């Protein structure tokens, strides 16, 4: 199905199932521990052996010698795979550094060997006996030191390296009120609950991998490419995923090493990345240095806005596109953005929840707060007065929907923003200095092809198959809701099967595109199935109504199941998009409001209240969407206050590489969170009229926290995370 014109009324608009807060259909499996995750697939293949990964002990250089003698002789060892004996390996389309390093080392903890043994304990013990002599090279690990030599990246997924409209330099210089500030965001890790894990089994040259991956088709394709085997010979299965946040978008070392280990050992092998390895072995959100300049009239009208960002990456890696939102979020006739990329030898930087926007909003939305201070204008009012309903770079191009102003004003009213004292450091509650902060939320809606197969059987059960993944987001449930709405059956009559490369290729989970596109793909397949059902039952498919397990047309009706009386009816289709995403700018908007307390003595920061108001198209399942947004708000608090992959610039690694040193919020850090979804349908996005929401939830949160901290204390911190040591000097003298 091609989606070329704005959606009109369709069966989804009945909202009998769609739009209702619905508990996850797979929830009971998860809460009872019976949803099988990759490492626990004991049942899928017999005789599984265990692989343990050895990571490089240096950040840059090469392996001089590897001595496997002691490890090979250790109890239970079946095989050891290194780059020396792995055979020729290619590199996946979406990998920068090779997943199996050696002799050249691209980054710390790059996998250099996998030790396969009969038990996990044997593999782990033997891995410690692998003796590797390294020759350390000169690596570049310091972003601040590398930016002078930073280059102009080729245009990428996130847009061109340079954009310009009007004359930024002249109008900025002429502006009566100017802000020019530099912000930094640190490297951050996904730190999802389930580590990367895979079980690989070979059968006559064909490989099956039970894994944990967000993008099944990408993974299968890159696995085939890396191994140099036909794509048809690779099957990836990933029905349950314990979090990903972008860390599982791509083929990673666990998959490759399980496959190589299984080939070498001649039996199935399972591999998980041990937690202390994950932060340096896999990808991360790269650090940025961002300079923002804004020129405004005294009435608050922005006349010039410029945003430059520097990040680093390994060879073949891409920049963090932290300037993307600045091109679209606020009005202003004169604009520029610039993205530069420095060569670093740290682990590969790549997507993490709202890549680009999350980092960019961390800086931009402090800058707007600072500008509001300079102007003496309320930061909510300043944002509203610089709203734009068109793409500022292409004013002929309208937003399909843009309710930012509504989000801000509704949020301000609900949060009690009028109680905020614009003068910092004025509100006291016992030992706490209390402050409020606001930030806009903004994230684009991405449309991409997504396919599904739908089957009706003679019991009237509808089964959906697509390689879409559920990374904890609720995909199972919204897909079931979609099929139930389309086929006129209750949710219980729908079976959803996901995450298998044997199923039709979906959009996968990433970039908050999963919800809208995958359900639109299911919609397309259901339209087709409805046609063949109608035909089978002798109805005109245009007129047939599907409800309550019955198909009706005029005064005739027949049970749905009857259509499958002589055998299952199967339909497969994909949603494909025309130009609506080009003609209209499709984005999601929100406003985050945060109240913090800062301990007047110790400068400890604790969040007291949070509110997000979101306008993100039709909300397919308010319960699941709320879970996504409160999770994202929590992650935003982490980004604001604690998450920090600290670079050891001498040894070239992230030294905070376990869950004790890389702090993420715990329950005690997160207060009551409110989420409001504005009533919105976006007919430009898809027949579902939905958009993404999961990444919108994190965009702006950290800045809202930062702005609240400033309001509480008067201290402006421009370098994340905002930790107490950065506040102490500016805190009031102890009484």
């Amino acid at each position, binding site marked *: 199905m091609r989606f070329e014109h704005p959606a009109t009324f369709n069966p989804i608009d009945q909202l009998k199932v769609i739009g209702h807060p619905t508990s996850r259909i797979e929830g009971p499996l998860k809460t009872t521990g019976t949803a099988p995750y990759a490492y626990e697939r004991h049942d899928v293949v017999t005789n599984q052996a265990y692989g343990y990964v050895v990571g490089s002990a240096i950040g840059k250089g090469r392996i001089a010698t590897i001595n496997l003698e002691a490890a090979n002789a250790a109890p239970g060892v079946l095989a050891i795979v290194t780059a020396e004996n792995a055979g020729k390996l290619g590199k996946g389309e979406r990998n920068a550094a090779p997943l199996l390093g050696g002799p050249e080392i691209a980054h710390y903890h790059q996998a250099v060997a996998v030790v396969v043994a009969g038990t996990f304990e044997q593999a782990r013990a033997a891995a410690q006996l692998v003796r590797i002599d390294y020759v350390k090279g000169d690596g570049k690990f310091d972003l601040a030191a590398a930016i002078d030599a930073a280059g102009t990246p080729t245009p990428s997924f996130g847009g061109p390296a340079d954009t310009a409209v009007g004359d930024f330099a002249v109008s900025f210089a002429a502006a009566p009120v100017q802000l020019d500030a530099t912000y930094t965001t640190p490297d951050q890790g996904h730190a999802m609950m389930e580590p990367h894990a895979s079980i690989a089994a070979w059968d006559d040259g064909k490989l099956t991998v039970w894994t944990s991956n967000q993008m099944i088709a990408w993974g299968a394709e890159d696995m085939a490419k890396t191994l140099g085997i036909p794509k048809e010979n690779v099957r990836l299965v990933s029905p349950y995923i314990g979090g990903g946040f972008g860390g599982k978008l791509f083929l990673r070392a666990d998959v490759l090493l399980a496959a190589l280990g299984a080939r070498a050992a001649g039996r199935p092998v399972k591999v998980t990345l041990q937690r202390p390895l994950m932060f340096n072995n896999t990808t991360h959100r790269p650090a940025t240095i961002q300079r923002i300049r804004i020129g405004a009239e005294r009435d608050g009208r922005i006349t010039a806005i410029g945003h430059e960002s520097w990040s680093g990456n390994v060879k073949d890696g891409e920049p963090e596109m932290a300037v993307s939102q600045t091109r679209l979020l606020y009005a202003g006739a004169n604009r520029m953005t610039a993205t530069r990329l420095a060569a670093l030898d740290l682990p590969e930087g790549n997507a993490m929840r709202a890549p680009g926007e999350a980092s960019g909003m961390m800086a931009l939305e402090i800058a707007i707060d600072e500008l509001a201070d300079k102007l003496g204008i309320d930061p909510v009012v300043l944002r509203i007065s610089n709203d734009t309903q068109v793409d500022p770079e292409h004013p002929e191009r309208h937003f399909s929907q843009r309710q930012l102003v509504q989000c801000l004003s509704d949020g301000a009213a609900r949060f009690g923003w009028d109680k905020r004292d614009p003068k910092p450091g004025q509100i006291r509650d016992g030992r706490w200095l209390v402050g409020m902060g606001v930030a806009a939320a903004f994230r684009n809606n991405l449309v991409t092809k997504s396919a599904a197969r739908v089957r009706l059987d003679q019991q009237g059960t509808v089964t959906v198959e697509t390689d879409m993944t559920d990374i904890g987001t609720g995909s199972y449930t919204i897909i079931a809701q979609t099929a139930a709405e389309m086929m006129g059956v209750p949710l219980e009559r729908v079976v959803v099967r996901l995450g298998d490369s044997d199923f039709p290729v979906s959009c996968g989970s990433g970039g908050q595109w999963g919800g809208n596109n995958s359900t639109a793909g299911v919609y397309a397949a259901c339209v087709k199935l409805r046609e063949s059902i109608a035909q089978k039952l002798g109805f005109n498919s245009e007129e047939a109504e599907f409800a309550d397990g019955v198909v009706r047309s005029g005064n005739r009706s027949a049970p749905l199941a009857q259509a499958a009386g002589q055998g299952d009816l199967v339909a497969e289709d994909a949603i494909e998009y025309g130009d609506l995403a080009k003609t209209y700018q499709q984005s999601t908007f929100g406003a985050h409001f945060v109240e913090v307390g800062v301990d007047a*003595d*110790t400068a400890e920061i604790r969040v007291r209240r949070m509110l997000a108001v979101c306008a993100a198209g039709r909300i397919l399942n308010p319960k699941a969407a709320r879970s996504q947004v409160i999770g994202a708000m929590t992650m935003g608090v982490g980004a604001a*206050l604690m998450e920090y992959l600290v670079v*050891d610039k001498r040894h070239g690694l992230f030294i905070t590489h376990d869950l004790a040193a890389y702090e993420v919020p715990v*329950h005690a850090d997160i207060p009551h969170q409110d989420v409001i979804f504005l009533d919105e349908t976006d007919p430009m996005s898809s027949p579902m009229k939905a958009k993404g929401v999961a990444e919108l939830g994190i965009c702006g949160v950290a800045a809202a926290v930062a702005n609240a901290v400033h309001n509480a204390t008067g201290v402006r911190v421009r370098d994340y995370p905002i930790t107490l040591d950065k506040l*102490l*000097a500016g805190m009031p003298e102890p009484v």
Partner: protein
Amino acid sequence: MRAFSYERATSPGAAATAAASTANAKFIAGGTNLLDLMKLEIETPAHLIDVNDLALDRIEQTADGGLRIGALVRNTDLAADARVRRDYGVLSRALLAGASGQLRNKATTAGNLLQRTRCPYFYDTDLPCNKRKPGSGCAAIGGFSRQLAVVGASEACIATHPSDMAVAMRALDAVVETVRPDGATRSIPIADLHRLPGDSPEIETVLQPGELITAVALPKPVGGKQAYRKVRDRASYAFALVSVAAIVQPDGTGRVALGGVAHKPWRLEAAEAKLPDGAKAVTARLFADAKPTKDNAYKLQLAERTLAAVLREARA
């Protein structure tokens, strides 16, 4: 993890004897720290002596009106003990500020005292660490040291002791009771239990090979207002950036021990004498010999401000 042999000890004396007579042996109680370190091969004992059956899990009144806490009393049980809560509030509060509920259920009193540093360089076996591999150097010096020691450290090591409980016990003048392989027992004031790193940071306590902690004795209650204030980036489940254990008497005298600043709980009786002069005077003396790094210099100011807050509350 290396393969190891294992036995369950039947008496404290037998445990100590077994430990002394077996090469590279370690005691295991709760195992909350040791097992993690074994998985990373930071600890590589050849033999584990499980002491969990030793019936050292009671809290008893002592003849002089104090409490004797068995070495195996779990942190959760110790924190919840009515006598501890009534008479040694600083200890109960310190315990509850540590780790997580699950870990406190498992962790023991003696094990808490003997837990090892959380310095990230100690945990990464590819990097130098004098504590893990004597003579290899200290990667924390010149590295990421925001969490690390500001006082009492050395050129060889700037690690901190991570315990909260030990800081409170230091303020309470607890005494550690042990049994040695020859059957002799001794009492070690907690002030003397932990060593400063000096040239041999790998030797963390004065315990002799095979020596087993059997109990920690608390002297009779000293009264006063007792507080434990732990400062950290997140609200729970994090090690202290700085912590303050304080006992403040109505006349303004009292005791102060700091956590998160040194290789051991940091208390100087000479500094406490300055309590009537306020927090600044106390911390000035506590940190007279401090040598902070650029990353952790904030701890000096933070400790002073935290102590000031504790004193203000105690006197309110």
